[in-house]
């Protein structure tokens, strides 16, 4: 893979929020890359920092309340060093984002077509009618029937699935290089989810973009992601090609997730939960954020800061256990539990 394929290179990203209750360390020392044609699935629960990471990439965090350190290199340029007006030129044009709840994400008082046309005119000096034509074109491309008439509708006249399609259309207006999708299917019905996942995949292939797919649903990740980044408590726990994560996971948190998930293809004899609750970000645990809940924890877990090396095709995790121990646990316990329960 040539380096010109690398779209996004996040290096040592940390985000801190100064709130009334104290300092919230939302993301700590996060590094990963995204290349063209890749779908990076970012998996994590509440407090994992996955959403904050995407907002940091888009430049949507308020810098007066958020301290951001590290680098976010987009095709070589550090987004964190850009001025607000320079950043605005990138946002929505080279890097686009769609969010979780498509109903709340569209302005209720403007027509859907108008909102997409607005996105066109935000980065291109075209007439209103030209922008409208482009809007209709995109609505059609994402599978909205009768795009020409439907463009004149208001968001409340669209169904949930259609609204998410409209959001995707809006994100694609300027052929971005990177598309970030934050829980795009969580608020949708199962049968509609399937349609949207396929649409995102199609978009990725047709437009040759890099996709960051943020979700808590391992099933969605397994079906669409080429690479997976597992986050917990603001840190990266494991990173690697999707196939390897599901067939040879190395981090106890990933093991815990795989063991505790019910499956649609089989009823399991027993679910093995991860005890405890997601960590508080105001008072995060010392050392590895997962150690209070970890069944395999050792002496050094509460004092060693976890470190993860994300090489493009490598598979790495941030756990201090030895590689042999991890393989042993996977082979002797996890695989049996997942397959044979």
């Amino acid at each position, binding site marked *: 893979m040539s380096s010109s394929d690398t779209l996004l290179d996040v290096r040592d990203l940390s985000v801190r929020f100064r709130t009334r209750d104290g300092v919230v360390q939302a993301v700590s020392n996060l590094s990963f890359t995204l290349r063209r044609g890749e779908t990076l699935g970012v998996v994590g629960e509440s407090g994992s920092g996955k959403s904050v990471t995407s907002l940091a990439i888009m430049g949507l965090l308020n810098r007066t309340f958020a301290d951001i350190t590290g680098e976010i290199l987009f095709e070589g340029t550090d987004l964190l060093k850009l001025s607000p007006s320079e950043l605005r030129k990138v946002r929505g044009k080279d890097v686009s984002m769609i969010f979780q709840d498509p109903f709340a994400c569209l302005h209720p008082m403007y027509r859907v077509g108008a909102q997409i046309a607005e996105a066109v005119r935000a980065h291109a000096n075209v007439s209103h009618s030209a922008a409208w034509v482009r809007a209709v074109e995109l609505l059609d491309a994402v599978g909205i029937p009768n795009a020409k008439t439907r463009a004149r509708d208001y968001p409340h006249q669209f169904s949930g699935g259609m609204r998410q399609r409209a959001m995707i259309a809006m994100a694609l207006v300027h052929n971005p290089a990177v598309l970030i999708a934050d829980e795009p299917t969580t608020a949708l019905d199962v049968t509609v*989810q399937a349609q949207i996942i*396929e649409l995102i995949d199609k978009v990725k292939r047709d437009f040759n973009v890099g996709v960051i797919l943020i979700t808590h649903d391992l099933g969605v990740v397994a*079906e669409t992601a080429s690479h997976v980044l597992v986050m917990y408590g603001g840190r990266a726990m494991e990173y690697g090609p999707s196939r390897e994560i599901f067939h040879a996971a190395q981090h106890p948190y990933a093991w815990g997730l795989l063991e505790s998930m019910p499956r649609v293809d089989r009823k399991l004899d027993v679910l093995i939960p991860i*005890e405890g609750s997601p960590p508080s970000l105001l008072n995060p645990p010392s050392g590895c954020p997962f150690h209070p809940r970890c069944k395999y924890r050792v002496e050094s877990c509460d004092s060693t800061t976890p470190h993860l090396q994300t090489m493009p095709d490598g598979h790495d995790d941030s756990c201090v256990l030895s590689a042999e121990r991890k393989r042993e646990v996977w082979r002797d316990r996890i695989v049996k539990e997942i397959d044979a329960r």
Partner: protein
Amino acid sequence: MSAGTTSSGQGPLVEIEHLTKHFSVKQGVFARGKGVVHAVEDVSLTVNRGETLGIVGESGCGKTTTARLLVRLIDPTSGTIRFDGQDITNLSRARMRPLRRQMQIIFQDPYSSLNPRKSVGQIVGEPFAIHRTETDVKSRVQELLARVGLNPEHYNRFPHEFSGGQRQRVGIARALALQPKLIVCDEPVSALDVSVQAQILNLLKDLQREFDLTYVFISHDLSVIRQVSDRIAVMYLGRVAEIGESERLYEHPRHPYTAALLSAVPRAETNGVGSGRHRIVLGGDVPSPVDPPAACVFHPRCPRFRPGLCDVETPILRRFDGDHEAACHLPVERWPMSEEELRRPSAGVEQV
């Protein structure tokens, strides 16, 4: 286990027959045309003692309304509800009261289903206060808190001091207080983090064994439903599309909608991108329950739709092996099936 409840001890715990619930939606100042939401339409099913009946479906299918009808939180438009052999459809409030001890409900959102102004001890103790059954409420409450995995010392804490999973445990403790026979669980784990879901599901299972409970478990998550249910009812637009024993339903769904649902669920068991799994993709969106399609409500989206049959004659639930029933004129012959195969029902399948 509990005194003062009479029961036949035989037969299903809950039986509903031809249960229907319509909500009227007024249109216009002069109420020119009354819109009617067909939330639940002609639903009949039974819940056996000690089992978990799962009800699954997408938005607008009527599962939540059915849950509330079962415990008479809302009243039906027509149909009958029998609880423990007794017809409770039209019972007055006063006569329902003692029965309410036997049927409880747990809600989806652990953040809004607990009164933020009451301490956890007060919340769990409230059922005792209402039904005046205990003298030493406090120790009973602490016993319950311990049983659901919470620290009894936290009796005086308030909901906002607990995490989502812990709050859901409080809701469960509250439901258990009066030793009910039936607990309706309305999406109890949907709002929880994945790592906590398994804890709550395990807790519910343990409690069922220990207290001989019957569950009606509502969810949109097909993997959770498979894990917890003995029998499952699949609902679509207010009607039951398919109902039967859980394993059999997943191994061989008979209704095309169930088939599409099963094939749509993203799976972690696949091997990554483009796994080549043939997904049955339904066109369009779920129609509005105000204006449901004629005859078979699924026909506009059904890959097997046969004009002249499916849009003319309403299918009734017909029986397959065991107690597996599906309401379809052209049920699915075998499973798995690809979408193309689904579109071509074999001849003679109408008479099963």
